[in-house]
């Protein structure tokens, strides 16, 4: 694994990480502001925080109430 980390050009990967962070932060802000979600609200907090990339997207697509 160490070799892999050295061989990767981090300037290339950085945008991915930044986008993923923005998604996560926006999802969190929305999570704090929203009153109710589909399913238990606390569950979505864990999904947003623990699932990289997919968590915030899942939250926006399914977790927010369609209103």
């Amino acid at each position, binding site marked *: 694994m160490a070799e*892999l980390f050295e061989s*990767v050009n981090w300037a*290339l990967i950085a945008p991915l990480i930044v986008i993923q962070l*923005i*998604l996560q932060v926006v999802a969190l802000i929305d999570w704090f502001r929203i009153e109710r979600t589909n399913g238990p609200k606390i569950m979505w907090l864990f999904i947003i925080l623990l699932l990289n990339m997919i968590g915030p*997207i899942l939250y*926006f*697509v399914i977790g927010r109430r*369609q*209103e």
Partner: protein
Amino acid sequence: MMQFLTVFKREMLESGRNFKWIWVPLVFILLGLSDPLSTYYLPQIIESVGGLPEGASFDIPTPPPHDVLMMSLAQFSQLGVLVISLMSMGLIASERKSGVAELVLVKPVKYSTYVSAKWTATSVLVLVSLFAGLLASWYYVNLLFGDISFLHLLATWFFYGLWLLFVISISVFMNSLFKVPGLVGFMTIVLVILTSIVTTVLNHILDWSPAKLSPYIRMMLSEGNISGDLWATALITIGISIALLAAAIYTFRTKEMA
């Protein structure tokens, strides 16, 4: 026209509040980035995962630049379409369910204005997102694999955008048929998949089916010129989309609202 703008603006405001204007473009950028990157690092990934017998080696040929761009398009066709149909499934259906649609239509707003303004608002969001995603993919392809001209990127955006507009039209049509958002999303996905399957099965008859936009775009990218087939397919796609919208407006009129 004024009414159209009012409904349109309200819809834009709504998607801003929902953070749609942030997360949809970001998702498309993510989808666009992932394939050029993972293709580029494929040899390293295989090496680090291991499991290959000692001494085994195989060369993975570097794909030509336009193939990598097409991989991103394939990504948009799967996850992108999924996101679009899930995002737009509540477009009208949930407003009918909650009664907001009634509030809007009590005022002298025409059904056609209401439906087309919503369609336009979603389309603008999706087209901008698609452009952001394609731009990201194009930038990485140019960096890692080789040149694709910007004009080709614009053409890809235009023609592929038509396919996504087709998906949105299906979704709006389904919104007029069903009241439950989940059902709308499901039926939209089913219809899109059905279009692809029918096109594959009747490949020799359906030369200009909307689902053939992607293959023709691939041809355009590899050969460099826009074929007559691509134009014809584009026109057909626009035609079907308009017909779907008209059908949606018609069903709204005849159906008891909300």
